[in-house]
């Protein structure tokens, strides 16, 4: 309050100084303008608390009007035009308010004045000639515009003009008080005139000056009327009585500039009055707060004291708050607060669960609304609040069987209050929980995975799962199958990637060592495998949307694979036929598919199915973008390929860190499988011209290894594999073994498997077998015969295994040899072509190609000149060709 006075006195001194000097008109007006702005600034400061949207709009209008009037005074037509257009826009903006309140007087006044003014100017031919071109042009446009525009306000303007003439009348008669005016405006006018008369009586002022003063005053009054516009008719009496007080004070004033400060004074008092009124307005049934417009105020109180709080009021309040939702400038945090307060109130007053549920729904959704950006994640406290809220909501739902919720319940068919009927509440708890789950993912995505914070956040996973579980129970009893499917999928999504250590131990026949562990085991409930099975099968049976079923299948496969149930996983994958149409799925599903394939590959590897493992991992690894394909991070790429928007989308798809598949493990598994396949193959097909690579990536790694100028002991996982491959090429299985399985590799890769020991044993055996094969391929030409016993000693394999491997090679015609049973030796046939023969064979093949090419040229010639050579003839050439090539082949075979 004191502050207000301080500014008031400030402006007073300024005003008086301006009044003392007799300044030219132009400067005077500018000064006045400054003054007005200053004042309005002050007003803003003090009034911010209670300003409604209406006030704001009207102030905007008045500001523009002021500038127009100023422009009018200095005959700046272009400025006038510009401002007028702005005014029209501003007026349109405040259309809703105007519809409610009626066209504000000051607006009409300006329109009328402006038109008159323009007409006057238009008539003034001399003046028009003096105008510069721009101004003249603006004048004509403005005149046309205002003519058109004023047609809409014809009635208002005529009524205003009436009043104006009335005013003229009062001026002449100088009897202001007695007039009973129809409009507020007139009252003010009369008041002003009354003051003016008094002034004239006290100080003998020049007519002119008072005239100009009149202009200024009318402006100020105009702005004043903005505030008073909201006042009701009763207020007028108060204003009139105020005038008396005002007059009293006025007597003591010395400069007529004082008027302003006094006026402010008066305004202040009025404000105070209003505040008072608000304070005890409830008794009088006066509720300014609910002025039709949604007000968002930081008022601690929802309802005034004494209001009987019943459900109707609360519901009304709720919808009021809801209306502000999503609007610009709405304080979202405050809204959440308001909801909470409302929930508290309804709780205190026992308004029933229906309303509480409704409010809770709104709290959660406004919590979700808090972040306007889809990419931003919830703040921790918000997140906690959200979890609590949903928990409470579920509590209520569980405790009250008579609440029906659903998104298809219409707003007006809701039943929140009448407690003897079942409550019907609009809202979908499933959507809320799903959104919560997404928010959780977002929180996890946006936390640094190596921080303690991540661990803390991850602890909430239990609560999220708990909520989903409870919702699952709830929906199983109440929801439709569709909803059940959805919530089942959520449950599956939280289960499939977790390794069930308890079940694993149990399957191994181990009991928990300590008592507490046993207890824990018992309390744990059923195995995740059983849960997965139940949920997925339900979805397979009931789901009608393809997406949920696809996700469920993939998760199921993943879960099987994770727990080394290779055959179930593989069969499910093959039966689902997902490989055929996964490219049509949306990216998140594709990521899930990739994850599943990778897990399947790793599972196959653990089971010793090297070929299957390789095939499963080939697609992911060969692209070199495994990280991206698994949704575990973005690859660095230039901005041309991906703009910021795409990057954001991709970021949102990322899988949270705790679900990641170890990429090094993945690559190692792939490379080792490739090594076990490729090295014997390379040895077997050393001279084959048509040899194809099994794994490009593996070859790439080998080449990288070869390119190294200095070969040190291997450091990284890749170097280990490359070194091991080189050893295997020589059939040196021991070195190979020591490169693949050692401490470094164990800590990097192998220990990540749940059954590390078993995997290592499998791996050693594979290395021995494949080394044996490689050895035989590479060095068979050197031997006439080898004793199998020697081989079994060399590779530390038992004799039957060696026997079976060699037999298999002989059967597959990979090894040209025969087994001599009595002596247990392998006798080589020595029919492998020498390198020169191989070369000759290659040359022959190439020659065949050359001839074929040549024939084609010849054909073409024939075709052009002959014209009658048809396809059959061409076929004849090719047949001949085939025959010839067949000849080569038979030659080849006979040479063996």
């Amino acid at each position: 309050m004191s502050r207000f006075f301080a500014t008031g006195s400030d402006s007073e001194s300024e005003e008086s100084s301006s009044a003392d000097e007799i300044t030219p008109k132009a400067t005077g007006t500018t000064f006045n303008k400054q003054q007005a702005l200053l004042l309005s600034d002050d007003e803003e400061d003090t009034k911010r608390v209670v300003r409604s949207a209406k006030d704001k709009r009207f102030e905007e209008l008045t500001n523009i009007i002021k500038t127009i009037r100023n422009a009018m005074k200095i005959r700046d037509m272009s400025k006038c035009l510009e401002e007028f257009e702005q005014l029209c826009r501003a007026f349109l903006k405040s259309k809703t308010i105007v519809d409610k309140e009626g066209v504000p007087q000051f607006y009409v006044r300006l329109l009328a004045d402006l038109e008159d003014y323009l007409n006057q100017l238009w008539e003034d031919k001399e003046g028009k000639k003096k105008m510069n071109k721009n101004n003249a042009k603006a004048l004509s446009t403005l005149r046309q515009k205002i003519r058109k525009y004023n047609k809409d306000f014809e009635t208002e303007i005529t009524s205003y003009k009436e009043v104006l003439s009335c005013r003229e009348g009062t001026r002449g008669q100088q009897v202001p008080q007695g007039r009973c005016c129809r409009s507020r405006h007139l009252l003010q006018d009369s008041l002003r005139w009354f003051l003016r008369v008094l002034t004239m009586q006290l100080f003998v002022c020049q007519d002119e000056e008072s005239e100009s003063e009149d202009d200024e005053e009318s402006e100020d009054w105009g702005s004043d009327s903005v505030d008073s516009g909201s006042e009701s008719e009763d207020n007028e009496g108060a204003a009139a009585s105020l005038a008396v007080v005002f007059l009293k004070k006025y007597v003591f004033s010395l400069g007529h500039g004082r008027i302003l400060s006094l006026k402010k004074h008066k305004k202040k008092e009025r404000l105070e009055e209003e505040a008072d009124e608000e304070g005890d307005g409830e008794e009088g049934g006066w509720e300014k707060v609910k002025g039709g417009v949604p007000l968002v105020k930081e008022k601690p109180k929802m309802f005034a004291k004494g209001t009987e709080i019943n459900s109707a009021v609360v519901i009304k309040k709720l919808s009021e708050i809801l209306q502000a939702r999503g609007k610009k400038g709405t304080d979202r945090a405050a809204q959440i607060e308001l909801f909470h307060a409302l929930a508290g109130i309804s709780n205190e007053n026992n308004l029933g669960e229906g309303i509480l549920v409704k409010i809770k729904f709104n709290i959660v959704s406004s919590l979700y609304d808090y972040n306007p950006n889809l990419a931003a994640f919830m703040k921790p406290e918000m997140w906690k609040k959200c979890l609590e809220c949903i928990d409470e909501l579920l509590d209520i739902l569980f405790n009250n069987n008579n609440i029906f919720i659903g998104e298809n319940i219409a707003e007006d068919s809701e039943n929140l209050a009448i407690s003897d009927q079942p409550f019907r509440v609009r809202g979908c708890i499933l959507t809320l929980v799903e959104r919560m789950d997404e928010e959780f993912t977002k929180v996890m995505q946006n936390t640094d995975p190596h921080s303690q914070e991540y661990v803390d956040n991850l602890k909430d996973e239990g609560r999220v799962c708990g909520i989903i579980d409870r919702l699952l129970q709830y929906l199983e009893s109440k929801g439709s199958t569709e909803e059940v499917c959805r919530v089942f999928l959520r449950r599956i999504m939280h289960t499939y990637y977790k390794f069930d250590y308890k079940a694993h131990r149990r399957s191994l026949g181990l009991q928990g060592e300590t008592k507490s562990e046993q207890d824990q085991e018992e309390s744990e409930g059923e195995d995740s495998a059983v849960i997965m099975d139940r949920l997925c099968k339900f979805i397979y049976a009931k789901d009608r949307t393809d997406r949920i079923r696809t996700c469920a299948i993939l998760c199921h496969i993943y879960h099987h694979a994770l727990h080394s149930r290779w055959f179930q996983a593989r069969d499910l994958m093959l039966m689902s036929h997902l490989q055929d149409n996964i490219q049509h799925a949306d990216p998140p599903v594709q990521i899930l598919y990739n994850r599943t394939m990778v897990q399947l590959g790793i599972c196959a590897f653990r089971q010793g199915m090297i070929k299957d493992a390789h095939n499963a991992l080939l697609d992911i690894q060969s692209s070199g973008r495994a990280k991206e394909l698994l949704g575990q991070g973005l690859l660095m790429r230039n901005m041309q390929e991906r703009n910021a928007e795409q990057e954001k989308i991709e970021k949102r798809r990322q899988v949270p860190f705790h679900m990641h598949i170890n990429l090094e493990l993945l690559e190692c598994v792939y490379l080792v499988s490739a090594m076990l396949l490729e090295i014997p193959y390379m040895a077997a097909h050393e001279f084959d011209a048509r040899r194809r690579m099994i794994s490009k990536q593996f070859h790439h790694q080998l080449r990288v290894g070869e390119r190294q100028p200095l070969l040190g002991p291997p450091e990284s996982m890749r170097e280990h594999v490359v070194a091991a491959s080189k050893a295997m090429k020589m059939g040196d299985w021991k070195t190979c073994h020591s490169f693949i399985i050692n401490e470094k590799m164990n800590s990097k890769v192998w220990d990540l498997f749940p059954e590390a020991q078993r995997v290592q044993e499998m791996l050693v055996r594979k290395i021995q077998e494949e080394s044996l094969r490689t050895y035989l391929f590479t060095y068979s030409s050197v031997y006439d015969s080898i004793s199998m016993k020697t081989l079994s000693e060399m590779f530390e394999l038992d004799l039957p295994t060696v026997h079976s491997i060699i037999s298999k090679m002989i059967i597959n015609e990979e090894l040209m040899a025969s087994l001599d049973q009595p002596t247990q030796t392998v006798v080589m046939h020595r029919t492998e072509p020498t390198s020169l023969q191989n070369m000759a064979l290659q040359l022959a093949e190439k020659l065949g190609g050359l001839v074929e090419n040549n024939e084609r040229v010849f054909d073409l010639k024939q075709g052009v000149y002959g014209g009658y050579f048809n396809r059959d003839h061409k076929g004849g050439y090719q047949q001949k060709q085939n025959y010839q090539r067949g000849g080569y082949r038979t030659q080849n075979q006979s040479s063996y």
Partner: protein
Amino acid sequence: MLTVFFDLWSDKKRSKISSVKTFSSSCVFVRLQVVLKIIKHYQEEGQGSEVVQGVLLGLVVEDRLEITNCFPFPQHTEDDVDFDEVQYQMEMMRSLRHVNIDHLHVGWYQSTYYGSFVSRALLDSQFSYQHAIEESVVLIYDPIKTAQGSLCLKAYRLTPKLMEICKEKDFSPEGLKKACIGYEHMFEEVPIVIKNSHLINVLLLDLQEKSTVADKHELLNLSSSNHLEKSLQLLMDRMDDMSQDIGKYNTYCRNLSKQQQQKQQYLQRRQQENAQRQSRGEPPLPEEDISKMFKPPQAPARMDTLLIAGQINNYCQNIKEFTSQNLGKLFMAEALQGHSS
């Protein structure tokens, strides 16, 4: 070295047999000094598939070319860009003239790796030589064959036909067809006769008396696979190139014929239209430049293919020669074995 020398005679005789009559000089006389210099040059500077080159000096006497001296092109790395080869040659020849040595430029020599010398570079430089000095030849020295026991030195000249083509620089399929040139008519081999002054002959005979019999005869080496493998490898590489070229030519032919058809169709349509117009009494359509509308596709240069064919021919000859010799040796060894056992 001596064995090498004595083998020369047989080589000389062989080349005499296969001599072809040519217009400027029917045979090339080479001084032993030149041969030795070339061999020395390769042994000092060439290794593996690297090639050494040099300038031959001599003069034309009647219908024969006598090569009396030579000097090598210096090896120079890419670092010294300011090295001027022409300048060096001029300097060299001037210096040789000062010591009263034949200084006339009559050709150049080049070493080869497993007989691969038929290349565009050789063609171009031999063409420019022959263009400037009509009688100039290129001597091809095969160090590998020489190391196996028989000196291999051959003189080649471009055939007049090829000279014509190179002059016109028309390597399109039509051009080559018109010139009627095949890979076998590209180079003509000129018989070489190694001729010495009598004094040297006397010295050699003298030395022959004194020299001990060499205990290692490269000529009788029975191992063959290494050499054959290398040759086959090279042959295969050329085959690949050839296949590629044929493929290119094939596409060209197809494109051409397709365009021809289009052209024909267009012309026919045009004719019909004109006939119709005539029957209606209207003026015929104006003649348009058909060649502009149907731009013939870019023909692939066939010269490279020709050269590859020549090279393949060369390899085949080499392999044939090598295998026939080796077979002979094998039979000989077998007979020896049977005789001794």
